[in-house]
């Protein structure tokens, strides 16, 4: 082989080396990517493509021209939103209810998982777990009917009060009591379901660690603190980031089915406002899209902030 040919061969670029790392990665695991492709396609079609509708926040929707043909109006919808007293009220309620959920509801499944882990293994654990998980599958329409039944003037709650000689209370028309019902009913419905993730994390702990701790004289609480909690903590950190990123979603299904005129002041959240403005008021699609857009932007910012905090300050694994 002549020198020139040798040189040419030496300098011929290796097609595999010239590929980007991403292409290499895809090429290497192409069958896995093919398998995951339908899911990616699903998200593209039903989550990302519909996002084009967000332009309505900057347009005045015209039924004859559709989303793309409707005229641009700059920040007109934003002015309307900020000038609307219902928006300010709904924004305040959303933030208050969501922070309340973080403080009161978020720890509930963690506690439940830790407690369930302490129940001696066997049928009892499975029965308890099933009992706690079951409410997740009941819709809010049904639960709201049950709650109205319980808290009505002749319902179980007031019958109990009467039994003890106390005066009846209208829990669902009193703002603070209604908010408490929101938190408690959501814990009842969702804590068991949410605890599954924590229980899965706990299940990965080597039982020998508990045995060793027991030999060292650690009691149940010390075992929980030293072995279980560090594992649960990482899962909790990720779920906390997601919960913070979801903070502007106050829980539409629950509130929409439960609220009544007496507590709108306390329970009208951005989601119920969006629904109302899109389908009932004359405010229309531009207004509701703008509220939805603002909600998403705030959620995204909060998610990034929480992720940053968890990774840098709390030194936990983030997203």
């Amino acid at each position, binding site marked *: 082989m002549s020198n020139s040919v040798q040189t040419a061969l030496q300098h011929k670029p290796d097609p595999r080396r010239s590929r980007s790392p991403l292409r290499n990665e895809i090429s290497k695991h192409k069958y896995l990517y093919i398998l995951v492709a*339908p899911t990616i396609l699903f998200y593209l079609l039903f989550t990302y493509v519909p996002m084009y509708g967000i332009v309505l926040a900057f347009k005045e929707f015209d039924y004859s021209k559709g989303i793309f043909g409707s005229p641009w109006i700059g920040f007109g919808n934003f002015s309307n939103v900020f000038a609307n007293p219902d928006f300010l009220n709904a924004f305040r309620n959303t933030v208050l209810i969501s922070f309340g959920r973080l403080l009161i509801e978020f720890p509930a499944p963690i506690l439940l998982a830790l407690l369930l882990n302490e129940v001696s293994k066997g049928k009892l654990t499975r029965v308890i777990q099933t009992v706690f998980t079951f409410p997740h599958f009941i819709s809010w329409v049904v639960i709201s009917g049950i709650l109205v039944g319980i808290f009505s003037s002749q319902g179980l709650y007031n019958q109990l009060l009467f039994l003890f000689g106390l005066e009846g209370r209208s829990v669902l*028309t009193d703002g603070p009591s209604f908010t408490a019902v929101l938190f408690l009913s959501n814990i009842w419905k969702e804590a068991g379901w949410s605890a599954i993730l924590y229980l899965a994390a706990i299940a990965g702990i080597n039982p020998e660690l508990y045995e060793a701790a027991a030999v060292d004289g650690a009691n149940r609480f010390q075992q929980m603190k030293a072995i279980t909690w560090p594992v649960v903590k990482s899962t909790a950190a990720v779920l906390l980031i997601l919960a913070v990123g979801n903070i502007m979603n106050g829980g539409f299904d629950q509130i929409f089915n439960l609220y009544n005129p007496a507590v709108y002041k306390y329970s*009208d959240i951005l989601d119920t406002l969006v629904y109302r403005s899109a389908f009932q008021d*004359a405010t229309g699609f531009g207004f509701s899209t703008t509220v939805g857009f603002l909600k998403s932007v705030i959620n995204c910012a909060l998610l990034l902030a929480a992720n940053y905090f968890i990774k840098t300050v709390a030194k936990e694994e983030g997203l």
Partner: protein
Amino acid sequence: MRNKKRFVTAISLLAFATVFAGCSSNNDSDSSASSSGQPASEQTASPSASEPAASADPLAKPQELSVAIWDIQDGFDNPEAKNDTIYNDLTKKLNITVKPVQITWNDWQEKEKVWAASAQLPDIFANAIATDNRSLYSTWAKQGVLKALPDDLSAYPNIAQVMELPSAKPLTVDGKFYMVPRVGFLDGSSAGVMDRPILYRKDWAAQAGYTSDPNSYEEFVAMVKAVMAQHPDATGIAINNKDYLLTPMLGSFPELASMKDAWVNEDGTWIPAFASAKAPDAVKQIWELYHNGLLDKDFAIQKDADGFRKFLNGQAFISLGGNIRDPNNIEAFAKANPDAKVSDIGYMSIWPTADGNRYNFGLTPYWSETFFSNKLDDEKFDRALRLVDYMMSEEYSALISNGIEGVDYKLEDGKAVSLLGTEQTLVQKYPITSKFGYLASWHSQFEAEGKKVVNANPNVAAIDTAASEAFNRFKSENKASPINFEITLMSTPAKDKLAGALTPNNGGIVDELFNVVLSKSDPVEAWKKVVKSYDAKGLQDAITEVNAEAKEMGIQ
């Protein structure tokens, strides 16, 4: 290894195919849509474009019309649907086929708004935007969602008659109508007479010593208290749904019973009724009913019809509203109250106001309208109008109310007498008609004129008789609430914007009333605060615009 790769590839392709198959149906229907923008289903039913457009017989060409009316699909899905002779005769008479498009009482507004945004509205549909959401009505009219009625309505005499009603005339957009009101009565003075029924237990009232309608609010309160003393476990006054809470206002400030819409003239200025100086005292009366324990304690947390069900179950003395005419409800009452007769249910007349008159509810003699999609071509539109016009006729009202003469009823001395068995109903026999038949009218006038068949079921017949007697009494003895339709139905930008804040079922002015009634604080001051809060929602701008427009129109 090779086989494994092939297997994985095959599975992946299958998954892809599944996703694409799921997405393809819409594309198919889109691609086959006609150039005129009609859905594919309409294309197949419509004759080809090469056929002659006009014919001497306007009904010669078959037409398919898609129709959205509450629960229409349920009627078509009924096993007896194909034997619905009234519907079959109707379609033959007008040479049409009807494509049902389902809406329910829970989703109709949402569905139709989405269909309008995506150009998928059915050809004919019922909605309630001309009065309830004037801004949206104008928008849909101006932006080509709705088809305008022709200027010459002589071919559709019933529609023409309704469009002449004072309560319909102001509902033009740029000089054209884009809807036909779904009236119960062609005679405007009869409408509203039975729109806010006060159902009560006559037997309970008699036991408490009351055998006639109350002559004042105080007497009404005393009556309810006396009955509740004898039935301590029962609710005094239950309400069928939110708007019925306003019923007692007919006895204090009748216009306020339509507080979402009504405008009144006060000291020479037109203002919304809820902002009137008379409103706080009217609100106070309802507040008192609640805080004196007469009004259902759960009225604010109940779903629609929960209060009426209490009445049916013998757990309430009065129900403000409720469909007692429904045979199922009548039977429910009979079953739940074995010691009572159905004839113990009475219609109470509202007590007189300060001027000595009793007032019937009065707003527009309709609360919803029939609309036509702008995608209809002229021929199809003509058929749709003929259909609606026929369904408003007395001939069709007779079919809906009595069935087919000689089959379901016979005429004896001018009276319609049922030929059905006591267990047989027209609803069972004509399932499509029982839903579709109310597309254009509620057919109330036919009944009010005493032409409805005497029902074979004695309980239903008893309620029919009580309702008919009450209608005649209230119509002759009471006055209609003094509503100025030109003002109340006027459209100006600020007024339409204010209406958007007043009318929503959630968060509107009626909810403000709920709040005030539930609150322990002084209702007069609380209502004044509510009125003040509407300044931020355009109340003052609306008053200014309406009065300027009224001045221009010469309305005093």
